[in-house]
């Protein structure tokens, strides 16, 4: 094949994306600025002054942020351990780590309901050993959502971090140590900054994933709404497609803002990319 036609290989995929993703998204966004044929920002004003919606927005951001932080805290050491292993052990353990992504989120959420419920595993245990008299409210709270989301997205951050950490020359740690750094200092001054790209990509994946997740918050959150469940409610229960589109646009905007901010952060932390 002639070289200049190689880009044609992209065509089927691009066409698909254009027709079934980009055009519908643009139409959705466009439709939010028009009511009865005239330009308006009424939809946005309605939401941004509505304390109920702002509370949902805040819950969503809080859940996503905490989920991301917890994923980093758990995922970083795990990924570092995995990156040090031989290929065989690493393959097996990585496959295990990815396992949550391979199960249906409905099944996964139901098992968390069994574990977290009033008569669930945790509460039964806590009451039995006398740590609490009354079962705790865990299920149907933001905490339950976070637990479910961490379980879902932890593999993403582990995979991206392992990918980055594997490519860090092990001699760098030795070099730092020979120059007088303790193990911990060497880790902090060498491994940590060199892991930033993986940390940023992983965090974006987890944060955006948590922000837009539907099944897990819907099943574990109960009456507690997040943006995605609120959007669903508007569209399907209230049949209000206009407000649903406005919520969707706000969600897209937040996603882009988050990615932008994280990229800026990455540039700042790692000037040489």
């Amino acid at each position: 094949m002639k070289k200049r036609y190689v880009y044609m290989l992209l065509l089927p995929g691009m066409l698909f994306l254009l027709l079934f993703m980009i055009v519908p998204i643009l139409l959705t966004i466009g439709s939010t600025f028009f009511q009865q044929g005239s330009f308006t920002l009424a939809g946005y004003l309605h939401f941004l002054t509505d304390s109920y919606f702002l509370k949902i927005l805040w819950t969503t951001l809080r859940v996503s942020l905490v989920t991301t932080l917890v994923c980093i805290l758990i995922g970083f050491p795990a990924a570092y351990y995995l990156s040090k292993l031989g290929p065989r052990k690493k393959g097996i353990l990585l496959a295990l780590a990815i396992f949550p992504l391979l199960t249906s989120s409905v099944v996964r959420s139901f098992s968390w309901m069994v574990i977290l419920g009033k008569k669930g595993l945790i509460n039964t245990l806590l009451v039995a050993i006398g740590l609490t008299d009354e079962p705790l409210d865990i299920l149907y709270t933001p905490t339950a959502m976070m637990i479910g989301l961490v379980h879902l997205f932890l593999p993403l951050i582990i995979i991206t971090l392992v990918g980055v950490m594997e490519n860090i020359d092990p001699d760098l740690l030795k070099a730092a140590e020979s120059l007088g750094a303790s193990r911990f200092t060497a880790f902090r001054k060498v491994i940590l900054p060199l892991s930033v790209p993986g940390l940023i990509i992983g965090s974006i994946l987890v944060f955006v994933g948590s922000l837009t997740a539907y099944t897990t918050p819907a099943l574990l959150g109960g009456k507690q709404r997040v943006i995605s469940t609120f959007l669903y409610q508007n569209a399907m229960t209230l049949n209000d497609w206009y407000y649903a589109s406005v919520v969707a646009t706000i969600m897209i905007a937040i996603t882009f803002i988050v990615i932008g901010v994280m990229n800026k952060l990455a540039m700042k932390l790692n000037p040489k990319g």
Partner: protein
Amino acid sequence: MALLSLENVSVAYENQLILKDFNLQVEKGELISLLGPSGCGKTTTLRLIAGFLEAKQGAFLFQDKDYTRVPVNKRNFGFVFQSYALFPHLSVFDNVAFGLRLRKVKEADIVKRVGQMLEVVNLSGFEKRFPKELSGGQRQRVAIARALVIEPDLLLFDEPLSNLDANLRVNMRVEIRRIQQELGITTVYVSHDQEECFSISDKVAIMNKGVIEQLGSPAAIFKYPKTEFVARFIGFTNFLNGSERQERDGQVELKVAGHSFLIASQAGNEGRTGKKCAIRPDDLQVEAGHGSTGEPNRLNGIVKISTYLGRSYQYVVETALGNFTVNQEMDTPYQNGQQVSLVFPREKLVLVD
């Protein structure tokens, strides 16, 4: 007392013993290289000295103190890696300053000392560059500056030139030797390149299978290899296995299957009691036609292979004692199958164990 001393050290890696009862002494201010084929234990020895590996048995003494259990970061040794191991996220300045910052040196002093060190390695003006913006030789010099700026008590090199191209390698080894002598810093240098080791070292230790086969000055090893392994490693290809040995008139006579070889006794060669001797292809001489059979140090044969080497011709000559390789400068080469006789000059034959 030696500055550095490894005493009966054993090191195992994944249940495989790499060094066993290993001994090595290094004097203050000297550059000693460990030379040998891959898997001979030279890098293991270096990493043991650096503290990256722990000895299973034995002791490592440095300045008469037991360093066996001292952690890497408390040893104050400079280490230069084969891969250079520069921190990719730090500029040249910050790479070199890394060790000084850990030592809480004042920022003004850091600027001064890093500047001086970059001058020593000819890299002034490169402070703001990042490692990936440098050539291989420049990276190497940053690595050396980074190891030297902490004023280490010992400098360790792990095959530092093997990633450079041939010309640069020669320049860099001259540089390394110059810096090492200028600063008078005790250095242990590991390489598998014979020429490299011989050209920069005060002493060379030839290693094989976890043991030092010979330790001495480059000239002594080059002229009088002690064992067959060392001889082969430094370019002796011809060996004679004698069955009888006699000493008379200040020379050794070796009988090899009825042929007699006389070997001159020389300083550096004395005290060797083996019945084996070796000679380099360059030192062996070849003459046209067969000579008289009874004459010592002469062997008749025929040319099997002839190869043009540029300055000389190389012949493989088949004799009653096996094949010998000989290099000779000449205008018209011998033909394959031609009758020749080999002459073994008595002062060029070296007794080996």
